[in-house]
């Protein structure tokens, strides 16, 4: 006999949502529904007791779905039945043609993966600060619109004027600085640190993981260090508390270690509190926390009312400035990351549109093939809306399957990007992931995709006279066939995929060009490091002594110092050539410069063509000199002798430099060849780069580098010791990753479009098999028929190629703004994309062409 159940089991809840489950079951099981639901509730409650809520919930929902599938059409009479019946028919149709269903779901998975990945990247860049209620932490800027939005500095006095604004629950300021951290037990290290007002850390709601906060007065010379610095320099020892260090040439005491991952505001490694007197005269970036219920605009209005201009402007009697309040992380995007990510999102959406068009085509073609069975359903009483709903539900099921598949692919890709690209993200709070608004966005895309893929096939079937279809009339065939829509879909897919592939090709070419950088220079043989000279020391004297000490080290063939490396892409402002006239300052060309010591040219094998190179005699106080590349001379100094010409750049403080030599330009792939080098001794720089070249193993020179510098001045901080090849690899890592994603997306789009083209050609060959059979029977050559099919393929491919490449050509200036370099209109790239595109298009036509040529006239005509 059945065992007694708990008295409330049958009245208990089903796996949520109960009403939906009951409605589904009631619609399909009629009078039995009450008992069935009661049985399900009883079994579900028992499972919860025995196996836990999670397993019971999964089992319960399986029961609901499986029970719905066994429902009887005659049992249910409610309006819930029709959609459920449509879903059952849709599921059956999908099961009957598993190959097409899996192909469609796979295509949609590809289509969903791309925008999901790229949206995750974009969300990662826009994420709020990783502190409690980080979305309410805002930054305050004061800008001058009449001066191109230039931001004004704010001091502690201005923060005092703003104190009391009711829209803010906290207000403070910070200034980011660089300094040398020294301790008795560790080598001098350059760190980036933040000087904060006392309100900042309480405002953020963050405290040290070890130790205590500074007392807030700034008088205790306390400093907090970051977790990573603690691990690297102090081996993670709790003895760090109370350690006496020097930071920025001032003695301080370590009082705390901040939690792992904290690097406020932009990746800093140490924090100290400004004394009120220091804060009043320190230019700072304001930061605040919005009060509950307050908006950015309300806060900005209150602060604007209290703003009376900076000290400098007060002195100049030029009060102005507009106060802006924005999320702290809003708009941040170092190196154009936000623009690049947004561009990738657009590429991803293109891919999804391509995928949806492809699936719509597949569903349209399949509906055409099933038109007779749909016609029979109509004859048996199914209404047009019911048949259309069936096709929409098929598309929805495919979209859901594709969405899940796309999320899986995106999860893998985002994990890879996070693991390999975290170091390249501009700000420490950037973290990619499938959270936040990404999942709801994907869910929305699933619904949109289902509509996009299912609407047209559904409408076409709903409008067709299925009785005419059943009668076999030509009109019936025309109404139910895919018609011109199919070709339109394919052309759209091909056009978008061509444009996406061209954009991806340009991005990939840019990275490839940048990759040639290493082959132009002995990058693996050169060791580099960033030096930070003593605060307040004699930089000029130090540079000369450092170069001499480095050159004297055993194993070092050549040594040099410079502002940047040979491939540095830092503009040195607008160039002015003596004797040239410029209508406006903006007409002066931007130049790419460097300042070097004499050894620089030997380190990098830069050959002299004319005159002389930088020499030790080119010291501070002597006549400024410059050495230019031959490309620079040709472009900016005209046809005559470049030696003796004079030029100046803002970095030289308006002094004219005389050209004393011309060196051979080197091809960096990316970046200009027109370069000018000045003497490092004549350009102020507290943080030069050191370059050492010895034998083939550059890393073996690292001990020599440190010992030479320690002998000159132990307070010189050395950071980023790595080979020139490593420097280059770091520079191209993030663009390479983005280019790889773009190329992958472009190729995926091309694959999807090619599948769509194949489908259309296959259907067309099948539909016209009678005509093909007749032509063959009358003596036509099979190869001629195959050529005709290839022309059918080219009909959408050629216009798509023209429009796609043309669109990419027009958009190339936008692409050029975010690339490493290279030419966004490189004809080679466009030609390669064109060839690849044509090849794939023709490849998609091979099988249909072969089938057309292999048509057996006798079989076809007998079947007719």
């Amino acid at each position, binding site marked *: *006999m059945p065992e007694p159940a708990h008295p409330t089991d049958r*009245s208990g809840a089903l796996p949520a949502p109960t009403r939906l489950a009951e409605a589904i079951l009631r619609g399909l*099981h009629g009078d039995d529904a009450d*008992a*069935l639901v*009661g*049985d399900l509730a009883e079994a579900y409650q028992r499972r919860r007791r025995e196996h836990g809520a999670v397993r019971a919930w999964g089992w319960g929902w399986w029961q609901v779905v499986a*029970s*719905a599938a066994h429902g009887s059409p005659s049992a249910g009479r409610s309006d819930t039945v029709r959609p459920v019946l449509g879903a059952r028919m849709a599921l059956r149709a999908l099961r009957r043609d598993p190959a097409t269903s899996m192909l469609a779901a796979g295509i949609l998975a590809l289509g969903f993966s791309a925008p999901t990945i790229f949206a995750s990247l974009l969300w990662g860049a826009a994420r709020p600060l990783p502190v409690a209620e980080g979305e309410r932490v805002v930054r305050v800027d004061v800008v001058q619109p009449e001066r191109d939005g230039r931001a004004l500095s704010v001091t502690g006095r201005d923060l005092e004027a703003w104190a009391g604004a009711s829209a803010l629950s906290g207000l403070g300021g910070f200034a980011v600085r660089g300094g040398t951290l020294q301790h008795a037990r560790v080598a001098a290290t350059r760190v980036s640190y933040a000087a904060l007002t006392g309100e900042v850390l309480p405002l953020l709601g963050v405290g040290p993981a070890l130790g205590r906060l500074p007392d807030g007065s700034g008088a205790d010379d306390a400093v907090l260090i970051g977790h990573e610095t603690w691990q690297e320099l102090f081996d993670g020892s709790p003895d760090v508390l109370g350690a006496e260090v020097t930071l920025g040439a001032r003695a301080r005491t370590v009082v705390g270690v901040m939690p792992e991952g904290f690097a406020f505001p932009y990746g800093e490694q140490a924090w100290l509190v400004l004394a009120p007197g220091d804060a009043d005269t320190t230019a700072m970036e304001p930061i605040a926390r919005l009060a509950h219920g307050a908006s950015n605009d309300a806060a900005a209005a209150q602060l604007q009312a209290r703003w009376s201009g900076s000290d400098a402007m007060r002195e100049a009697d030029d009060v102005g400035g507009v106060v802006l309040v924005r999320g702290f992380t809003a708009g941040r995007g170092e190196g154009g990351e936000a623009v690049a990510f947004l561009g990738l999102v657009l590429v991803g959406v293109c891919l999804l549109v391509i995928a949806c068009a492809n699936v719509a085509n597949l569903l349209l073609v399949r509906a055409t093939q099933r038109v007779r069975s749909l016609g029979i359903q109509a004859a048996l009483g199914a209404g047009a809306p019911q048949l259309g709903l069936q096709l929409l539900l098929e598309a929805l099921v495919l979209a859901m399957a594709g969405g899940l598949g796309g999320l899986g692919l995106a999860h893998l890709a985002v994990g890879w990007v996070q693991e390999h690209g975290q170091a390249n993200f501009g700000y420490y709070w950037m973290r990619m992931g499938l959270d936040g608004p990404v999942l709801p966005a994907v869910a929305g895309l699933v619904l949109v995709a289902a509509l996009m893929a299912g609407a047209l096939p559904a409408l076409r079937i709903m409008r067709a006279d299925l009785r005419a279809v059943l009668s076999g009339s030509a009109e019936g065939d025309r109404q139910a066939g895919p018609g011109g829509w199919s070709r339109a879909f394919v052309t759209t897919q091909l056009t978008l995929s061509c444009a996406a592939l061209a954009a991806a090709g340009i991005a990939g070419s840019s990275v490839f060009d940048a990759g040639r950088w290493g082959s132009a220079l002995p990058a693996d043989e050169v060791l580099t490091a960033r030096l930070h000279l003593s605060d307040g020391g004699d930089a000029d004297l130090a540079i000369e002594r450092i170069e001499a000490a480095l050159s004297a080290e055993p194993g070092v063939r050549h040594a040099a110092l410079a502002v940047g490396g040979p491939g540095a892409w830092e503009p040195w402002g607008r160039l002015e050539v003596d004797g040239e006239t410029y209508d406006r300052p903006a007409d002066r060309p931007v130049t790419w410069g460097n300042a070097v010591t004499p050894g620089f040219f030997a380190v990098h094998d830069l050959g002299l063509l004319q005159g002389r190179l930088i020499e030790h005699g080119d010291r501070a106080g002597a006549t400024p000199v410059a050495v230019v590349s031959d490309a620079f001379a040709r472009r900016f100094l005209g046809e005559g002798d470049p030696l003796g010409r004079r030029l100046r750049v803002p970095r030289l403080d308006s002094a004219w430099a005389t050209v004393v030599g011309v060196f051979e330009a080197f091809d960096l792939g990316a970046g200009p060849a027109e370069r000018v080098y000045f003497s490092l001794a004549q350009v102020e720089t507290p943080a030069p780069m050191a370059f050492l070249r010895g034998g083939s193993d550059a890393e073996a020179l690292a001990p020599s580098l440190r010992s030479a510098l320690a002998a000159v001045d132990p307070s010189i901080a050395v950071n980023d010791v790595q080979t020139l090849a490593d420097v280059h690899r770091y520079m191209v890592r993030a663009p390479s990753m983005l280019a790889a994603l773009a190329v992958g997306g472009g190729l995926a789009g091309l694959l999807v479009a090619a599948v769509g083209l194949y489908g259309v050609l296959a259907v067309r060959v099948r539909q016209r098999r009678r005509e093909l059979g007749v032509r063959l029977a009358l003596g036509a050559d099979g190869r001629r028929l195959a050529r005709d099919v290839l022309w059918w393929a080219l009909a959408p491919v050629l216009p798509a190629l023209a429009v796609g490449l043309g669109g990419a050509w027009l958009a190339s200036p936008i692409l050029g703004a975010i690339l490493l370099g290279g030419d966004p209109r490189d004809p080679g790239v466009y030609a390669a994309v064109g060839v690849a595109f044509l090849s794939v298009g023709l490849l998609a036509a091979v099988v249909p062409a072969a089938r057309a040529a292999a048509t057996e006239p006798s079989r076809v005509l007998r079947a007719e």
Partner: protein
Amino acid sequence: MARDDYLGEFEHLVLLAILQLGEGTYGVPIRDEIEGRAGRPVSFGAVYSTLRRLESKGLVESWAGEAEPVPGGRARKLVRLTPEGLAALQRSRARLDRMADGLGDVLGT
């Protein structure tokens, strides 16, 4: 022999479960019995649609049990085998035995 006399596999299992459990059984124990003895997952929908079919063939009959004396309490649908149902089971079993006659070694029975 009437066409309604032929039993499908799941109809067999449901009838045998009712026979095992006795008169007045209902959906939950029937499902548990089939899952436990036959080792196959079964949905309540499958059980109920089969019971409807068997009832239409006259092989089982059902009646509503009393609802639980609690708010929202749902009544059970109780079932029992009819004499025709028992006879159909017996005929079906005999049919299978005749088909399997002499195959004991092969079938391992």
